[in-house]
C-alpha cells in the first residue's frame, strides 16, 4: 500500500503518551454492540483487565469481557485448549447468544490458525451449535483500535450473514464504524426510521452501551443487534457503510449478499447530512420528515451565527483516523484552519485529510504541533499536554473518562452537527467574551472547565 507512506510516522523509538489503543480493544467494542454477546480475548488475562477498565471508565457501564487466560506454559504449547475451555465455560455459565473472540499479541506471536481452530471447535463440540462464534485476528503489534473494530465487524459479516432469496424493500443495513458513539447510532436510527425504513445496525451500541437499567444482572451484553438480525442482513434493500474502516466489511457484505452498498466517509456536516437524506429519500420514495427539515434549518442558522468564531481559528486534532477525518472536515467546513492532524495509525483515509500537517504519532507529537493553536480536539488523554502548553481541549473520541455522558454525545446528522458546532463555538466565544488571551498560565480561572487544565 504505497499511498499511505506519504504521511510520516514519528521517527522516535519511544512512543510517548500514546494515542494508539490496541486492536483487540476495538474488536471488543464491536462485539459489545451484539445482543447477549460475550467478547473473549484470546491471550493472557492482563490485556483483558486493562481493556475492561478503559471501557468501563469511558462508558460508565458494566463491560462483559472474558479471557482465555493463557499462561507461560499454554503459550508455548499453543492456545487451542485454553480457547476451547474458555468457550465451554462461558456457554455453561452465561449462555450467551454469541461469543466474539479476538486474538492478542500473545496468541498472534505464536501464530494460531483461527480458521482451523474454529472448525476443530465445531467438530468437537456439537452440543454448542446454538451459540454463534466469531473469531477475529487482532494482533496487538499491528494496526490499532479502528482496525480491530473493522476486523471484528468483517468477521461477523463473513461468519453470520446469509444471502437471501427475498428482498425486504424497507429494510436497510448500516455498518456503523467505531467513530460513531452510541448516541450517534441512536440518531442515525431515528433519521432512517423517519423515512419509514427499518435499519439493522451492525454493531448497535445504542442499545447496549447507552445506559441500561436491567432487571437482572447478566454477564453478557444486554441489547444490541441480535444474531438473527445479522443473519437476515442479506434480505435488505441497501447497505449504508459509515467510515473508511468499514469499507472492507461493506465489500464483504455486498459480495456475499448482492445488497448494494452506499459509502459515507462522514456524516458530520451540512453537506454530508444532505447526502444521507437524499439517499434515504431515494431508498424510501418518501419526502424528508418535517422534523429533519426543521433540524436542517436550525443547523444552517447555527452555521451563520457561529462562523464568526470559527473563521481562521487554528486547531490541532488527534483522533482515530475516521473520526479525525470527520472532525477536521467539519472544522474546515466552518472556516477553521486545521494546523495539525495526528492519527494513531496509518489509514487510507489520511490521504483525503485537509490539514497543514498530517502525521501518525502520539500525544507528545500533538503537544509539539499544537503550541500556537487556539484549540486541541482529542480524547481525555490530551489533557496533560493541553494543560502544559495552555491550549484549550475539546474532548472527543475514546477514552473520555473525565466527562459524563461520553458515549451519548451526538455529532452526526443535522442535529449532531449543530451540537458539535455549539460545543466548540462556545469555547471560542467564552474566550472572546471573557477577554482572555491565549497561553493562559496557572491562574487562568478556567474553573476546571473543558480547557484541559489540571483542575480536573
Amino acid at each position: 500500500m504505497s499511498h499511505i507512506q506519504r504521511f510520516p510516522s514519528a521517527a522516535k523509538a519511544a512512543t510517548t503518551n500514546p494515542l494508539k489503543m490496541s486492536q483487540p480493544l476495538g474488536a471488543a467494542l464491536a462485539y459489545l454492540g451484539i445482543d447477549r454477546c460475550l467478547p473473549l480475548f484470546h491471550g493472557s488475562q492482563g490485556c483483558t483487565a486493562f481493556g475492561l477498565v478503559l471501557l468501563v471508565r469511558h462508558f460508565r457501564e458494566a463491560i462483559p469481557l472474558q479471557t482465555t487466560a493463557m499462561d507461560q506454559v499454554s503459550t508455548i504449547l499453543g492456545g487451542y485448549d485454553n480457547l476451547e475451555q474458555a468457550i465451554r465455560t462461558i456457554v455453561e455459565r452465561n449462555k450467551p447468544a454469541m461469543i466474539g473472540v479476538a486474538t492478542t499479541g500473545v496468541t498472534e506471536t505464536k501464530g494460531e490458525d483461527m480458521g482451523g481452530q474454529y472448525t476443530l471447535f465445531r467438530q468437537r463440540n456439537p452440543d454448542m451449535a446454538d451459540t454463534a462464534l466469531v473469531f477475529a485476528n487482532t494482533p496487538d503489534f499491528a494496526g490499532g483500535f479502528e482496525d480491530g473494530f473493522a476486523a471484528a465487524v468483517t468477521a461477523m459479516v463473513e461468519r453470520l450473514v446469509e444471502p437471501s432469496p427475498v428482498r425486504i424493500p424497507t429494510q436497510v443495513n448500516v455498518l456503523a464504524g467505531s467513530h460513531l458513539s452510541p448516541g450517534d447510532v441512536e440518531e442515525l436510527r431515528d433519521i432512517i426510521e423517519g423515512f419509514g425504513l427499518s435499519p439493522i445496525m451492525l454493531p448497535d451500541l445504542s442499545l447496549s452501551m447507552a445506559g441500561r437499567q436491567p432487571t437482572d444482572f447478566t454477564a453478557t451484553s444486554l441489547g444490541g443487534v441480535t444474531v438473527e438480525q445479522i443473519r437476515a442482513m442479506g434480505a435488505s434493500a441497501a447497505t449504508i457503510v459509515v467510515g473508511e474502516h468499514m469499507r472492507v466489511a461493506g465489500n464483504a457484505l455486498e459480495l456475499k449478499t448482492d445488497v448494494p452498498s452506499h459509502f459515507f466517509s462522514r456524516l458530520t456536516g451540512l453537506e454530508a447530512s444532505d447526502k444521507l437524506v437524499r439517499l434515504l429519500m431515494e431508498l424510501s420514495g418518501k419526502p424528508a420528515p418535517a422534523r429533519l427539515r426543521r433540524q436542517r434549518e436550525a443547523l444552517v442558522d447555527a452555521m451563520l451565527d457561529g462562523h464568526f468564531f470559527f473563521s481562521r481559528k487554528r486547531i490541532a486534532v488527534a483522533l482515530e483516523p475516521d473520526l479525525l477525518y470527520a472532525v477536521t472536515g467539519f472544522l474546515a467546513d466552518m472556516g477553521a484552519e486545521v494546523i495539525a492532524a495526528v492519527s494513531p495509525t496509518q489509514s487510507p483515509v489520511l490521504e483525503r485529510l485537509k490539514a497543514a500537517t498530517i502525521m501518525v504519532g502520539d500525544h507528545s507529537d500533538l503537544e509539539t504541533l499544537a503550541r500556537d493553536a487556539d484549540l486541541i480536539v482529542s480524547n481525555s488523554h490530551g489533557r496533560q499536554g493541553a494543560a502544559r502548553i495552555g491550549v484549550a481541549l475539546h474532548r472527543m473520541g475514546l477514552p473520555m473518562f473525565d466527562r459524563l455522558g461520553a458515549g451519548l454525545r451526538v455529532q452526526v446528522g443535522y442535529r449532531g452537527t449543530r451540537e458539535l458546532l455549539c460545543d466548540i463555538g462556545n469555547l471560542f466565544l467564552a474566550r472572546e467574551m471573557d477577554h482572555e488571551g491565549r497561553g493562559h498560565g496557572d491562574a487562568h480561572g478556567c474553573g476546571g472547565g473543558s480547557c484541559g487544565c489540571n483542575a480536573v
Partner: protein
Amino acid sequence: MLQDKIQDVFNEPGCATNQAKSAKEKKKGCTKSLKPGAAAGGCAYDGAMIVLQPIADAAHLVHGPIACLGNSWDNRGSQSSGPQLYRTGFTTDLSELDVIGGGEKKLYRAIKEIVQQYDPPAVFVYQTCVPAMTGDDIAAVCRFASEKLGKPVIPVDAPGFVGSKNLGNKLAGEALLEHVIGTVEPEYTTPTDVCIIGEYNLAGELWLVKPLLDEIGIRLLSCISGDGRYKEVAQAHRARVTMMVCSQALVNVGRKMQERYGIPYFEGSFYGVSDMSDTLRTMARMLVERGADKSLIDRAEGVIAREESRVWRRLEPYKPRFDGKRVLLFTGGVKSWSMVSALEGAGLTILGTSTKKSTKEDKERIKKMKGEEFHQWDDLKPRDIYRMLADHQADIMMSGGRSQFISLKAKVPWLDINQERHHAYAGYDGIVNLCEEIDKTLSNPIWRQVRQPAPWESGPSSTLLAAE
C-alpha cells in the same frame, strides 16, 4: 532466571500463608492456575507498575506492543508533590517487524531518547509478554544502556503471563532489591528514620499521615513508593525500622531488608482508628528499641490521644444518621478489615464481605471479631450480589470500581474504596472523610426518585397525589 526469581518469591518465609503449605505446594506458588473463560484481574506487569510507577521523578518505559500501555496509562491516582514525569506514558510500541526481528535495538534507542530528552534520575523498563516470548533480553539492554548513558536503568522482569498482579508486586520488589535499594547513601541519617513499603499515595493518602509522623518526630526516609523519588528509594537501606503496609504484596522487600541490613519490620495499616494508633505506637516503640530517644513514645501517645478524641468527636454526628444502616463490603485482603471497627464505631452495621483475596488468618480474625453468623463469601457471583442488593438486604455497597454497576443497576448506593477513588481514607482524617462520603451517598435524594416506577408501569397511583 525469571523462573528462579518467581520460585524465590513463592518461597517467602515472611508470608504466613506460604509457610503453612507443604513443600510441594510451595513450589506451585501462590498463583492459582486461572480458569479460561472465568478469570478476572490484572497481570504481573500491571502489578509491577502499581508498585513502581509512583516513583514520580523516574521515567517508566513499557517494552511491548501497544496493548500493555496504550490501554492502561493515566488510570491511577497516585499523587506526587513535585515531579510529574511518572504520569508520562512511555512505550516501545512494538510493531510486527520488531516482533520478527527482535526489539532490543529499539528498546535501547527508546531509553536513550528518554534520557536525552527528560534527564530523569533513573529509567524503569518493564518487560511484557510478547518480547518475553520472542526472547528480548531486557536485563542485558538495561545493563548496556546504564553503562553507556551513565544512569541507572532498571529492568523489571514481570511479563503479564507469569502470573497475577500480586506476583507482579513481588517481582517489582525484587527489582528494587536487586538494582535500587542500597545504591545511594543519604546525606545524613537520624535515629528516627523509617521506611514505609506498600503505600502508593492514592488520592494523596500519605499526606494525611505524614504530618503526624513529622509532629511526633519520625522522619520518613523513604516511602515505597507513594510520592516517591528515586534517590529516596535507593537509600531505604539506612532506615531504622520498616513498615509494611500491605503485608501480602511486598513482604519479600521487608524481609530481605531485614536480612541484608538488619532493619526490623512490622505490619501496619493506616486504615481505621485503632489500626492507625497501633501503627504509630509500634513505629515509635521499635525506633526507641533501636536507640531513638524515649521521649518519642510520649510524643506518639500525645498525638494518638489527641487525634483519637478528635476523631470520635467528629464521628459522633454520623451515629444517628447511620443507625440501622447495613453495609456490604467487597474488597481484597486486609485493608477492609482495619476499617470495620471504625465504621462500626460510627454506627454502621457491616453485613458481610467477600474473602476472595483474604488469607486464612484474615478469615480467622474476621470470625473472632464478628462471630460465626457474619457472612463471608469466597466467591459470590455478580448476579447473586445483584439479587441481594435488589432485595434490599443492604443499604450501601463498598467495593472497587469494577463492580460498581452491580450496585448502581440495583439502585443501591455504592462507594469506591479501591484504587481509582478520589478521596483519601487513610489516617484519622481519612476515616472522617470515609464517613462523610458514606453519609453523602446514603442521604442523596436520588435513591427515592430512581426507585419510583415509570408513569406507564402499573403501580400505586399515589405518586401523583403525593406530588405536592
